């Protein structure tokens, strides 16, 4: 049989611009590529020469959906570089902000981007014609996530309120307590959305094991940050060693095999977090995960959707807990911490963005000017694994008609919730590929 190419020119309903290309020789799979044709914006170069106070404002613009993650991880990396300690309340509020992002981003992905594939609609608007209740439930949860980001961050996208040292305006106590009521009222919907996602994602299109990685903060909490990197091979690294986690990925050319972490591609994101931390879940999220444990299948990438749904419930419960803790510890209208004399230095921070582990690293001089910057995004880390799973899905679906196979490939790619604007490091253009994913800028 002749060679043929299965091509999804533009993968819609993801963030950013990319496509999928699969080359076949008869029934033999030759090559799989996730094509990324997002333009380069050179953030790490443009931030150099600017004062560190510009870092949150500029670097959060890497991505809208995960702007809170980019903003807070950039802030934490700068604080580490200049040796600035922040208040306990600041840490609580940052976690609350991240929970808001998690709720908004996951529900956007689950209801607006992923669900239409499983119910046979081209998009959320068409889906709403037949499933208005479900769509309104999803949008209601999404709005809740945005309400947190609006209150704590000062804006839903590109939060103006989070700065180096803390929050320029601490959210008002009454507003936090009102938010707590809204959070409580949405728990039943978060619960129902787990059952909804469970009902539509029963298939396994890949049956392909992955090596997972996620951060751990050693507190015993279901955590979204921490200084330790866990790898499912049993290895542990510190966040400062993030290059060792990702260095293996550097690929100078497409015809060479991509290198991998200890010879295997790596998956980060909700599925990885559930893989490592599901025993640390509490409350209703814990009960739901225990119910789902029998069907938990880390070799099925579609489970990432269900993992996100569990995290939405977890994030709502954790947000309530954060507000309670802030009140118990004594709510304060405090100003951001101010650094003393800066001696210059480097700092790295990692966070679990909705799509997985995100690293920012900066070097600043004694005037506070950024001299070096490095960003590694979860979509860039996941790209190898995404290609691995598209390969697995193609091999399982070789006898399918082309349109059916394409839909399967889209479901698999979309399950990663790829954020292509984020993958600033990754350039991959038809046949010629260069991914500088971790080497420091020359």
């Amino acid at each position, binding site marked *: 049989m002749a060679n043929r190419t299965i091509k999804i020119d*533009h993968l*819609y*309903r*993801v*963030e*950013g611009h990319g496509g999928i290309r699969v080359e076949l020789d008869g029934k033999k799979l030759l090559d799989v590529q996730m094509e990324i*044709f997002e*333009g*380069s*914006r*050179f*953030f*790490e*170069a*443009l931030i*150099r020469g*600017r*004062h560190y106070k*510009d870092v949150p*404002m*500029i670097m959060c*613009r890497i*991505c*809208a*959906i995960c*702007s809170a993650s980019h903003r807070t991880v950039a802030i934490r990396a700068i604080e580490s570089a200049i040796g600035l300690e922040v208040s306990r309340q600041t840490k609580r509020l940052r976690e609350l902000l991240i929970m808001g992002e998690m709720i908004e981003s996951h529900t*956007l992905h689950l209801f607006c*981007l992923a669900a*239409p594939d499983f119910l046979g609609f*081209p*998009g*959320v*608007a*068409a889906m*709403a014609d037949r499933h*208005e209740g479900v*769509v309104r439930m999803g*949008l209601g949860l*999404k*709005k809740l996530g*945005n309400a947190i980001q609006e209150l704590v961050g*000062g*804006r*839903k*996208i*590109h939060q*103006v*309120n989070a*700065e180096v040292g803390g929050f*320029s*305006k601490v959210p008002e106590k009454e507003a936090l307590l009102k938010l707590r009521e809204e959070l409580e009222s949405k728990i039943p919907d978060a619960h129902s959305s787990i059952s909804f996602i469970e009902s539509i994602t029963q298939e396994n299109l890949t049956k392909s094991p992955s090596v997972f990685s996620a951060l751990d903060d050693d507190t015993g909490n279901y955590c979204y940050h921490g200084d330790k990197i866990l790898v499912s091979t049993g290895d542990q690294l510190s966040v400062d060693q993030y290059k060792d986690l990702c260095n293996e990925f550097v690929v100078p050319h497409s015809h060479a095999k991509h290198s991998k972490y200890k010879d295997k591609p790596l998956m980060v994101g909700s599925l990885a977090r559930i893989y490592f931390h599901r025993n640390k879940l509490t409350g209703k999220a814990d009960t739901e995960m225990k119910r789902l444990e029998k069907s938990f299948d880390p070799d099925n990438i579609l489970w990432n959707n269900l993992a996100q749904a569990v995290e939405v419930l977890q994030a709502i419960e954790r947000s309530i807990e954060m507000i309670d803790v802030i009140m118990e510890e004594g709510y304060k209208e405090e100003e951001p911490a101010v650094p003393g004399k800066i001696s210059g230095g480097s700092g790295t921070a990692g966070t679990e963005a909705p799509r997985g582990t995100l690293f920012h690293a900066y070097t600043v001089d004694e005037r506070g000017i950024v001299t070096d910057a490095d960003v590694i995004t979860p979509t860039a880390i996941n790209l190898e694994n995404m290609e691995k799973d598209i390969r697995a899905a193609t091999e399982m679906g070789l006898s399918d008609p082309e349109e059916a196979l394409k839909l399967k490939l*889209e479901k698999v790619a979309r399950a990663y919730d790829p954020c292509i*604007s984020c993958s600033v*490091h990754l*350039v991959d253009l038809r046949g*010629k590929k*260069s991914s*500088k994913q971790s*080497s420091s*800028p020359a």
Partner: protein
Amino acid sequence: MPKPKIGIFSFTCCEGCQLEIVNCEDELLDIVGAVEIVSFGMAQSNNLDVDMDIAFVEGTIVQPREVEDLKKIRERSNLLIAIGACATYGGVAAIDRDRSRDELKKIVYGEDGAFIPTIKPSPLYEHVKVDFSIQGCPIEKHQFIKAVGYLLHGDLPILPDYPVCTECKRKENECVLVHHKIPCLGPITRAGCDARCPSHYQGCDGCFGPIEEANVAMEYNVLREMGIEKDEIARMVGVFATASDSIGDFLKGKDGK
């Protein structure tokens, strides 16, 4: 009467303006019910290259293929509306827009990145006719909804062209510039955000771009009197709207610098 055909398109950016449209959680189903959406990359996969009444376009043009794609969208649309700082005035991708792309490529990608296609980052108006711009980084959903209302009635939108200062006064905010000596671009920046940054005790960062005939030289003098260095002022104003006339001219040293 057939529903107006609308397309929402994206070039290089964070996609925050498309996201802000999806963030109209309460209004989204009404909006999509009132129009026929022929293209919306973030929200649907049945996107068609057909003629349309209105194209909303976000993002900065940074690669040659984007110039061609933008021209095709313009040919197919009756009205073309730029949404957000990137589409209107270049946005963050156009920071240091005159700097050599080869140099930036080398810093971020090393020698391997030489083949990456790049052009000087530019807003839409440098390539095609833009009928109207909704500004902000990102746009504000209330402005988008208001603009859609005007457009569906066959009018071009009317959005504020007064500075952020007016919104601060209306909110009775204490002036961060005068009272707290915080550098603020509010006097030269278009309103529409309800003075978000000053309301959080921060200076306006100028994300809505300059008002018509912005007096950048006066802003420069105010900031210089506060003891801020020339280079620092250039960096402050050179984030969101380097491709606007007033800020572009200022950065080129034509306007009092």
